[in-house]
């Protein structure tokens, strides 16, 4: 059983919470945020840097960062989207999925 801890944070002066702020506090989001924080502190970070440098030495332009990933699977079809925001990722995922409503005729 994991320990449950409560953290109380004072909001910056004059700030109120909107729907989007509340949405960002849901468990999935918080889990992703914590994973990202731990990922940033990962002991393997030095290895990742070395791999990035190797790629750049070989002529690749490397971009890396935190992002939202949305994934949909149905039968044999998998669609996966990464985007800077959750809304954008899911919206794009919907468009990708719409192309698979039917396999279509040859």
């Amino acid at each position, binding site marked *: 059983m994991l320990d449950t801890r409560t953290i109380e944070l004072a909001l910056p002066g004059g700030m109120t919470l909107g729907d989007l702020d509340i949405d960002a506090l849901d468990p999935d989001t918080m889990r992703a945020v914590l994973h990202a924080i731990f990922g940033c502190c990962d002991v393997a970070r030095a290895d990742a840097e070395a791999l990035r440098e190797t790629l750049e030495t070989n002529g690749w332009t490397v971009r890396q960062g935190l992002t939202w990933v949305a994934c949909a699977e149905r039968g044999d079809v998998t669609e996966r989207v990464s985007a800077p925001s959750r809304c954008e990722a899911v919206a794009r995922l919907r468009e*990708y999925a*719409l*192309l698979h*409503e*039917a396999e*279509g*005729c*040859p």
Partner: protein
Amino acid sequence: MTYSTPIREGYRQELDAIREAGLFKQERSIHSPQSAGIRVEFPEGAPERDVINFCANNYLGLSSHPDVIAAAHAGLDARGYGMSSVRFICGTQDIHHQLERKLTEFLGTEDTLLFPSCMDANAGVFEAVLDAEDVMIADRLVHASIVDGMRLAPAVRDTYKHSDMKHLERKLQEHQDKRRRLIITDGVFSMDGDLAKLDEIVALARQYDAMVFVDDSHASGFIGRTGRGTHEHCGVFGEIDIITTTLGKGLGGASGGCVSGRAEIVEMCRQKARPYLFSNTVAPMIVAGTLKVLDLIFTDTSRRDKLEWNTEYWRQGLIDLGFDIKQGDSPIVPVMLYNAKLAQDVSRDLYDEGVYAIGFFFPVVPKAAARIRTQLSAAHDKEHLDKGLAAFAKVGAKHGILGLGKQEIVDRFGT
């Protein structure tokens, strides 16, 4: 051991699941050339049967035309069996360039590049001409090969509701911040046989500074007054930026495809399209056969005229019998049955009556949209059509579906 028992068992379980879902595809051996009448062995080992073929893409009846066969033979003798090379190393013969020039003229474009298939053309074209700053806006019912091609391209993917021009316009407005906008559509949609509204699409493309892509595989050779395709039918001949089409349907039915369109776009495909760069050239005898096909249809519209007559006769015949068919102008005539089992049963019974027509159901078509897709050919004579209609009448009566509309069929058989 490289292929262990667990690996084998895993595949077998997946195949069993496909069977149990009723989605297992079985090939039927044909013991004759492709034509209106064919000899079929099905299931394997069963006696061969002569049946009328209503499911080939042999729209112009040229798959086994004696002049095309003779031209292919001559091409085989003159240029050999294969080239053992991709195009840009040592796989381009004079006849490849001849065919590309002829297709350019036929389709009313600026240049053309052959591909091993239209599937390959669609797989390669988007990645070659678009990047992450661009957007592809596709009709939601485009062919599977286009979907695969879009998935390979780095550009943003978006869709519009099938043939909904207001929705397409909204999407074009949304994407004005992108560098390039490409509207993507089939010319004739293979599932329902309906035609894209290319005149309206081209007008929107002009208004919102977009390019237009059309896959005209189910149209080249017979749609339009002289068979040039959907763009001719819609009055926008010469105004489509990218056309892909196949040599494997109306244009002889062998294999091969092409990207045809603006000179710079075709050149980009020649430089960057991976299916062109990394697969073999179209075989010389197919090139020679297709050159003959284009000779046959360039100035003589009798085959496409006959196909048009056959299509109208067939459509009206099915309507008169009381079948629920999808309206349209193409030789794809879907007979709507809505229920998957009914579609399979009707297809089986038609086969017993000497008619070869396949049932399609989810996931090939949307849920509750099962149908028999019939396809007409200029190779069909009136006698074939009358026999086909008689078989449909008999099988329709057996299942009690004549004169029933969608709701009545659904009420009786479910979806």
